[in-house]
């Protein structure tokens, strides 16, 4: 009973982190990139200027940091929780986006949009009443054996260079908000 409560609690905390940092990262990165002048041409100098502007923008870095936090929370929660539990629960980000758009940006949200948000919350509530884990879990990762600690060695290189790239592409398809933003851009 107690361990089930603990499982629900830590799962909820991680999903909360995902719901907060996923959309924030998308918005910050999107806003940061929009402030930068578009790349004039594919000439090396122009490409360099573009990337220099992007990587010296604090907003872009805040966005990358948020997306990184999102992806770490996503990986951590999936180490114990079902994917079929985490995925629908992460749809709560649609609710957060709507509330922020309404309160902070004073955007008009249509009744249909609100109805969708209410339905999502209700659906997540229904999913949330099921057990977050229905499969047997592997050994806890806190006590790495010899094989596991051996695998840690290449980690700094793999994690250091790969993670930002991972996050920008993976989060984009992992979170619903990327689709939202892309859709907004087109429409």
């Amino acid at each position, binding site marked *: 009973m107690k361990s089930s409560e603990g499982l629900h609690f830590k799962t909820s905390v991680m999903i909360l982190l995902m719901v907060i940092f996923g959309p924030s990262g998308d918005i910050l990165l999107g806003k940061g990139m929009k402030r930068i002048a578009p790349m004039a041409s594919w000439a090396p100098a122009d490409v360099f200027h573009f990337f220099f502007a992007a990587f010296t923008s604090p907003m872009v870095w805040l966005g990358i940091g948020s997306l990184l936090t999102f992806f770490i929370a996503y990986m951590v929660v999936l180490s*114990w929780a079902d994917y079929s539990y985490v995925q629908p629960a992460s749809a709560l980000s*649609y609710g957060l986006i709507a509330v922020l758009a309404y309160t902070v940006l004073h955007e008009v949200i249509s009744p249909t949009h609100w109805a969708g948000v209410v*339905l999502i919350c209700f659906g997540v509530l229904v999913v949330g009443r099921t057990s977050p884990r229905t499969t047997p879990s592997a050994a806890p990762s806190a006590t790495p054996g010899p094989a596991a600690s051996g695998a840690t060695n290449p980690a700094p290189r793999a994690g250091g260079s790969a993670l930002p790239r991972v996050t920008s592409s993976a989060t984009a398809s992992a979170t619903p908000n990327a689709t939202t933003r892309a859709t907004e851009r087109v429409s």
Partner: protein
Amino acid sequence: MTQAIFFALIIIPGTGGEICVSRAMKTIGEVTDFRPRAIARFIGRAMAVPWMWIGISMMATGFFALLGMLSVANVSFVFPATALSYAAGALGGKIFLREKVTPQRWLGVLIVCLGVALVFIGKR
């Protein structure tokens, strides 16, 4: 036809990629230590699992398919794809990760699908 291909290209690699990442995480084991160093070690170990990279490549494919689709197809094709990916996720979790998707969880997932569709409809 092109739209049907893009439709499949968004749902299958997007959801499939997430399922691969989920599989990679399950092979490492549950995180019980939440200190930054332990989390960093955990991420490092995750990056050494091939499923992780298969998943990331698939997710990237899904993302670029979405961008490609937005450039050639009407936006109205995007929301059914996004909404359906929640149902596809539950199905994928059941088939490939052997998760127990109870009728209650199915109900919740379907309600979320409907909600996501409404959010997109309400935007236009």
